[in-house]
């Protein structure tokens, strides 16, 4: 695999962006097909790359593109790093993107901004692939900012829709807070190490593990750096406290929700933590924070998803909750399990979103109360949605089951502080996952149709461009788990992803082995696995009972009985209100204070400087009287000063 092909992977979506952005007006639908072809090309390069990494002889390599600047202290090269983790990320990012591109051909057909949409999608994929491929933090940061920008542009895509531009703005502002953390972490690392090359940072971290250098194990510096980086991750990956932007981001077109806000961009935070795992494990305090934040996020978001009415909102909170699972795995040191969940999640969550999009496309409604009974109109969508729900709910042997169980066991066995509590939260969240996902399925596709008459009349199965990606993704949601079978089935079990990522995660593993005490008990693991299977089935049964069997009285009675809990969930823990009232309000107060400070102190200084500059400027203008003899006079004066200086210093 040579460098040229690697460069092509991000270059093809960039070409799609340029072609659609510059010539879209004349290309029309053809532009969309070109974008699909470009993305297909990227996927066609990534798949053999992954196969080589998984089964063939593969050694990680760097592709240095160019030296950006070199000036003594500053030496930044732009380059890509292709290792096992990159291969895995490339595989799913390009494949899911390809399917979303294809799906958008149907979904966005006839939209006035068709080519604008595809150009943004191309730019997004370019940025995402740069993020994944970057060999140094600045390159990753370029991708990081790029995906943020595209996310902002695409959330606000329906510019005339009420709320869409605001949602875009919200996403942008909240992400800024996170990016600030990323930048701080990056600068601190640069100040301490003099480099931002990821491999060199990990090398320094390995020294730090041995207690050498600025990155000593458990030191304050490494703790602050990792916390700052994690703040960046909470912004991009929608974790507490910065998760509120993601549900609002559903204002964007549904393929965007599937691609950016479920499968790829939001997992960038997890990717960063895994990429820097060698650094993160050096700060046990940070790891505890990550695990705690992640468990809380998973639980809170899962509980909110239980009562949401908008099908996309359910899926959005579900995404936040699943991201919590991924971070939880990272927080207890099971980075492989985290990234594996990223991988499987991308299939079933993309499938769910695209299915929801198919429903919205057909029924022009997204409120669960107004849907129902759609299976007979759109069987393909219904079945794929059902499979994806089963997968995310963790029904045994499906992809979601395998990856989630891996996380649950890792948490249970990690021996990290408070791991029992974390495990209990995670199990409850897993139960809620099964409930809310099947609630969404039952209320959309089963039971009596609640669509208005003329809408029901129009309900139909979507075109092939939309159903083919659904089927492919559903297939992925079933079998993706096979890439990493649970280790409990004996020594010989094939644990593909774990083996694959072994070299990348080695520095982290070494540290973990030195400091943590992991539990090994195959029988217990099997028992817990059975338990999580039972929980999933119980969740499905609960959902069935209250959304189909006893609908709607049962559900109402339940809501009444647990009124407080119901309200907490329905009003999303008043998180947004809290932000509006106290954070935004507090910001407002702070802004007033800042205004005062600005007006009297900063402005005072600035006016002082400006006044001095302006006075000086007037003086200079006065000298500039327009007479050539005066100019020559000053010229001679200057010359005399120069000569005087030379004689003076003789």
């Amino acid at each position, binding site marked *: 695999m040579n460098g040229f092909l690697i460069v092509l992977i991000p270059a093809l979506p960039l070409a799609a962006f340029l072609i659609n952005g510059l010539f879209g007006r004349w290309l029309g639908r053809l532009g969309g097909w070109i974008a699909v072809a470009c993305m297909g090309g990227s996927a066609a390069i990534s798949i053999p790359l992954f196969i080589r990494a998984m089964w063939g002889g593969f050694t990680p390599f760097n592709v240095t593109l160019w030296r950006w600047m070199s000036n003594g202290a*500053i030496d930044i090269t732009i380059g890509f790093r292709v290792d096992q983790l990159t291969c895995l990320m490339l595989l799913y990012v390009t494949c899911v993107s390809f399917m979303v591109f294809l799906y958008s051909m149907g979904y966005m057909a006839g939209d006035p901004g068709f080519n604008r949409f595809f150009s943004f999608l191309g730019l997004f994929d370019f940025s995402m692939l740069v993020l994944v491929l970057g060999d140094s933090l600045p390159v990753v940061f370029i991708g990081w900012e790029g995906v943020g920008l595209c996310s902002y542009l695409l959330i606000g895509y329906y510019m005339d829709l009420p709320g869409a531009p605001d949602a875009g703005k919200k996403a942008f502002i909240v992400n800024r807070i996170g990016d600030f953390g990323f930048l701080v972490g990056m600068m601190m690392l640069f100040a301490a190490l003099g480099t931002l090359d990821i491999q060199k940072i990990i090398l320094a971290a390995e020294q730090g593990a041995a207690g050498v250098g600025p990155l000593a194990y458990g030191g304050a510096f490494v703790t602050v750096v990792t916390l700052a980086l994690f703040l960046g991750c909470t912004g991009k990956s929608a974790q507490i406290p910065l998760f509120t932007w993601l549900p609002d981001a559903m204002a964007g077109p549904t393929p965007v929700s599937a691609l950016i806000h479920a499968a790829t961009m939001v997992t960038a935070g997890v990717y960063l933590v895994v990429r820097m795992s060698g650094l993160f494990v050096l700060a046990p305090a940070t790891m505890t924070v990550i695990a705690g934040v992640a468990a809380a996020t998973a639980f809170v978001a899962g509980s909110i998803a239980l009562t949401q009415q908008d099908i996309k909102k359910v899926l959005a909170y579900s995404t936040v909750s699943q991201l919590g699972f991924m971070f939880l795995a990272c927080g207890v040191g099971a980075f492989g399990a985290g990234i594996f969940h990223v991988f499987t999640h991308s299939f079933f969550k993309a499938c769910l979103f695209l299915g929801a999009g198919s429903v919205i496309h057909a029924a022009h409604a997204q409120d669960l109360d107004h849907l129902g009974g759609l299976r007979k109109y759109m069987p393909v969508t219904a079945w794929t949605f059902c499979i994806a729900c089963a997968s995310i709910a963790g029904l045994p042997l499906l992809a979601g089951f395998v990856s989630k169980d891996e996380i649950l066991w890792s948490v249970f066995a990690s021996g990290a502080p408070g791991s029992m509590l974390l495990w209990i939260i995670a199990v409850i969240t897993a139960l809620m996952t099964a409930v809310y996902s099947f609630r969404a399925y039952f209320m959309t596709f089963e039971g009596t149709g609640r669509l208005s008459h003329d809408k029901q009349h129009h309900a139909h199965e979507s075109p092939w461009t939309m159903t083919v990606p659904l089927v492919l993704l559903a297939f992925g949601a079933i079998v993706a788990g096979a890439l990493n079978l649970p280790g409990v089935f004996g020594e010989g079990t094939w644990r593909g992803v774990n083996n694959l990522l072994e070299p990348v995660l080695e520095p982290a593993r070494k540290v973990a082995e030195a400091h943590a005490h992991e539990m090994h008990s195959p029988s217990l693991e099997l028992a817990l696995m059975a338990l999580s299977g039972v929980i999933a089935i119980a969740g499905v049964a609960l959902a069935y009972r209250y959304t189909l069997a006893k609908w709607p009285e049962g559900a109402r009675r339940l809501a009444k009985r647990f009124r407080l809990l119901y309200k907490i969930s329905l009003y999303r823990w008043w998180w947004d209100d809290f932000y509006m009232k106290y954070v935004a309000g507090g910001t407002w107060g702070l802004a007033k204070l800042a205004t005062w400070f600005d007006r009297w102190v900063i402005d005072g200084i600035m006016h002082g400087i400006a006044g001095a500059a302006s006075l000086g*400027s007037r003086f200079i203008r006065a000298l*500039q009287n327009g007479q050539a003899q005066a*100019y020559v006079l000053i010229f001679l004066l*200057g010359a005399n000063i*120069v000569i005087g200086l*030379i004689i*003076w*210093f*003789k």
Partner: protein
Amino acid sequence: MDPKLFYAQVVQSLLLTSPLLVLLGAAIIVLAADVLMPRGWRGALPWISGLGVAAALFVLNGMGMPAAPQHAFSGALVLDRLTFLADNVILGMALYLIAISPRWLRGRLVPHGEYYALLLFAAMAMMALGRSSELLALFLNFELLSITFYVLLGIEKRNARSTEAGFKYFIVGSTAAAFLLMGIVFVYGATHGQTRYEAILKALFDAKGAVQPDMFALGMGLLIVGFGFKITLAPFHMYAPDVYEGGPTPVVAALATGTKVAGFTALYHLVAMAAGFKAIPAGVWAAFYAVVMTSMIVGNVGAVVQPNVKRLLAYSSIAHSGYMMIPLVVVLAKPGLLGAAEDAIAYYMLAYTLMTLLAFGVISALAPEGEGPIASWAGLGRRAPLRAACMALAMISLIGIPPTVGFFGKLYLFGMAIEGGHIWLAVVGILASVVSVTYYLRVVITMYMAEPAEGAEKPGVMGDAQILAVGLAAACVFVFAIFPWLYHG
């Protein structure tokens, strides 16, 4: 002398200077075409000139970047890495100006043939000045460049401001030439009759130490006075605001960019010759230091209240000359940093040329209203969005905001100051840049926030060549920031 060697050297010299000769030929052809062609064919003149510059570019890059300095005409001219890059920048500038000129000249009383021919002569003189590596050649090329500009600045004969600009440039220029010549004489005397830089360098570091150090220092001081005129260093800058405001806009663009590129290249060679010499650190160094500080302060402070864009750019160019001098001040005492200084200067001359040309290109595309007070730019963001955006980009780059060439250029320069241990140069430079934000942004704010005056009309449409040139320059502001290796490898 061996005749074979002699004639081989002559041929070699001619080859090395072939880009200059191509320009010379093109200029003569333009002049001949002007008098021989029917009057209706005048539209062909910019094409002939442009082809000439393109041919020169082709010949220059055909030679490639020289690995080691190559001398021509017994050491009178030199082609090294810096001059190669400077030549490229100068030729690029010439192409750009030829592209924006026809539309600007429309309806003005300017003799076209002379205008284009002189532009080519000016480009040739700039290249020659940059390549000078012998004191007499230096003086000749210095004067050659000055004389072309005396004429070019006053070429709009019926415009009193234009003639005034030419005249003022002439008065101050001849004063400066006197100082330069005096400086040359002192260096010549101090080194007992050496004029080639190589020979002077050898004499300076000769163990026997026959050089008169005081006299040499005085010579260097007078040389910087002379160059201070050419590259508008304060306090030798006084002519600049008037000349920039009154002169024909494309000519002023050449004066602001190409002349400085040539001046800095020549000055770099002079400094490289003297760097590390024992007499340098005290006197000459103090003079350089003082001139740099004054330039940064006077340029930035002076620009704050300027009501005219071209006048504002005059002060801005003084300030940028101050920044660009930083590496030279640093290497005077630390010859070890010569390579880094060369890099920094090479990059900044490109960056500065790009953004300044972009600004002047927009001004010329808005002529004649745009050449007036800044207030006339009000509301341009809506009236002429492309031009307003390009101007805003130029301003942002001149401030030094990433990811533009201006930012990376400044990073190199101030980085040099810190590396050389001159924190104060960096501090004053950065403070001066902060002051510069006020006046650069004033232009942007006027364009986008201010309401246009009653009855302000939409400015005339741009020509195709103008759009192409300005758009390309705007793209380059980004391209060379992200891919600097496209420029200096």
